């Protein structure tokens, strides 16, 4: 895994995740429980100013990666480093959360309906005591609102008075309040209408340029991820199966799962759609409680052999910056 960090870039990575595991224990009997391996040994790093897209189907653990990264869940195992520093103790976590924040998926349930917009945005400032006077707090809130295209007259209103796109703007302003370097965006546009999605995506772009932000962009809409990301990681059943620069993973996916995932994306162009040969997967994603042995994808993979059932393939670099976890990469793609 060490070579990932080396190859990823000359710049030092801002976020380094090594062998991250997050198990949830599910009761199966009176005194018995079974681990649900939501994230099972994931390693990656994100450079400063970069956007890493994280894609996969529901239940693959992509949201859990984002949440565990911010210690919203306590990691079962593994290391998370921010700017080279290991995040472990309570005080580390508190410091870390001044630098790393989150934008949530659902703009309807992630804003407190009993708080005004200015209190929602000001709450992180209160928690971390980032102002010396009331005036300073108010100025900062108005500045944040202007970042995301809200007017000062919106400050005294409640969340229910806003449309979905505007609520997501409030959520983004809140995440920017502590002046972070790193933001985990957990499906930030999937609850929005198509015509509003583009506005919010552009805003993420502009804020990144202006404030030098680093994003982990979790989403299931592959066209959105392709648009915004520098590199993309594909997850399946708690494991990372492929990681590569965005253009490369779209032009030349190597893992059989990435191939079928990308070919399943409906292209908004009738002629391409008619000509497109889709690789339609059979069956459903297995339950993470009964994950298959060896490679998690082998039950739906047409290339699976006995070896795939025996051992989990190593996540290794096959081309510059292109990592894939498949025993048969070379044979399939030759």
């Amino acid at each position: 895994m060490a070579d990932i960090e080396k190859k990823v870039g000359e710049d030092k990575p801002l976020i380094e995740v090594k062998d991250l595991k997050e198990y949830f224990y599910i009761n199966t009997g009176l005194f018995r429980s079974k681990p649900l391996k939501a994230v099972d040994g994931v390693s990656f790093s994100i450079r400063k100013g970069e956007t890493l897209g994280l894609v996969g189907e529901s239940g693959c653990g992509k949201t859990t990666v984002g949440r565990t990264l911010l210690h919203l869940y306590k990691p079962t195992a593994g290391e998370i480093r921010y700017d080279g520093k290991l995040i472990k103790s309570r005080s580390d976590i508190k410091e870390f959360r001044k630098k790393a924040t989150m934008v949530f998926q659902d703009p309807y349930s992630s804003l407190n309906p009993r708080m005004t917009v200015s209190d929602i945005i000001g709450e992180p400032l209160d928690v971390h005591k980032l102002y010396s006077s009331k005036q300073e707090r108010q100025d900062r809130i108005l500045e944040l609102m202007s970042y995301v295209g809200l007017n000062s007259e919106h400050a005294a209103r409640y969340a229910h008075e806003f449309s979905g796109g505007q609520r997501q703007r409030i959520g983004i302003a809140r995440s920017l309040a502590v002046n972070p370097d790193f933001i985990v965006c957990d499906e930030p546009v999937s609850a929005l209408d198509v015509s509003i999605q583009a506005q919010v995506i552009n805003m993420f772009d502009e804020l990144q340029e202006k404030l030098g932000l680093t994003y982990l962009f979790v989403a299931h809409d592959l066209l959105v991820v392709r648009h915004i990301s520098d590199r993309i990681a594909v997850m399946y059943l708690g494991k990372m199966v492929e990681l590569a620069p965005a253009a490369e993973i779209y032009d030349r996916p190597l893992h059989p799962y990435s191939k079928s995932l990308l070919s399943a994306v409906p292209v908004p162009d009738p002629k391409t759609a008619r000509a497109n040969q889709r690789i339609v997967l059979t069956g459903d994603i297995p339950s993470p409680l009964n994950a298959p042995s060896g490679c998690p994808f082998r039950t739906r993979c047409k290339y699976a052999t006995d070896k795939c059932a025996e051992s989990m393939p190593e996540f290794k670099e096959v081309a510059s910056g292109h990592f894939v976890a498949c025993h048969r990469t070379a044979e399939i793609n030759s």
Partner: protein
Amino acid sequence: MALLEVNNLRTSFFTDAGEVKAVNDVSFTLDRGKVLGIVGESGSGKSVTAYSIMQILAGTGKIVGGSIKFDGTELVGAGEKVMKTIRGNKISIIFQDPMTSLNPTYTIGKQLMEAILLHTNRDRKQAYERAVEMLRLVNVNEPERRMKQYPYEFSGGMRQRVMIAMALACEPDILIADEPTTALDVTIQAQILELMGSLQKELGMAIIMITHDLGVVAQICDEVIVMYAGSICEQGTADEIFYNPCHEYTKGLLRSIPTTDTAGRKLQPISGTPIDLLNMPQGCPFAPRCEFAMKICINHKAERMPINSDHAAACWMNVKHGVQKGEIDLDDISSDGDKNKAKKAAEENKDKSADKKQDSKPADNNMNSKKKKGKNKKKGGGKVG
């Protein structure tokens, strides 16, 4: 004769805050064996259109005008007795959320058989056989065992298959699919769309596909209706809508979606926020967000205007372009609409475009405009005299 003919359908919800006009003058036809896509954002009235056809509107909703003809039979005001012979039998519907549209307390088999027993003359044994056959048709493995299971034992994709099996069990002429794949993952979505496409060809039924995803539309639909704020903006064949969009909303929508080409570039969003259906503007509902909105757009709603034989749009911009190019004859546009409105529109546009031309080429036009002025004076003088 078209299988389904909807004319000037208007559906409103009567809420405490006032009348919400969810569907406003919607007209379309659907032929046998065709797939019609209805695209729009939330609140555009696409689902309400479908619910109006099935007459399954929620409490305060009511069809306030228009007609829906199925195979020549009028459905609006036909009464429950007639609708019971249509619903599930002739026209079936699949809902968006497969998690909540099955009853969790009954087995899959019981729910499938219920539909068959209700709508056909089969006895229980035949109904059971039909249900198993339908599950096999939608690629559910081990259908006999699955019949005894409860919905919680099925994954999302499997439940949507059961819903499709249920909807198709009585061989309907029309299948309405209300966002059938929105709650599903892309790989499962691809499975379901492929299944629907092959069943449609096999059984020769017509599908109304309601979705907000232009990718799904491109993949499966023959014809497309684009809706905004309860009205149809544009309708035509899929190729016409995607390659020759003629309404500013459709154009904006197509521009705003990220594709593989847009990486590293800014997207071009539609500015503004979605419309409040309680405070509808007087003119074109899209005018407040339209960058090309003219005076007429704010005051008068555009009528449906034909672009060519398989394409129509309700946008004044087409009149402007047409008049500028001299392609549009004003009498064509206003065949069943308000002639004065169209003429007025054209005149306003003419003035505007004339102004623009003068602004851009003041030197060249100096002579012409002087001449024009002279002519006008003469004319004016004549009238007065």
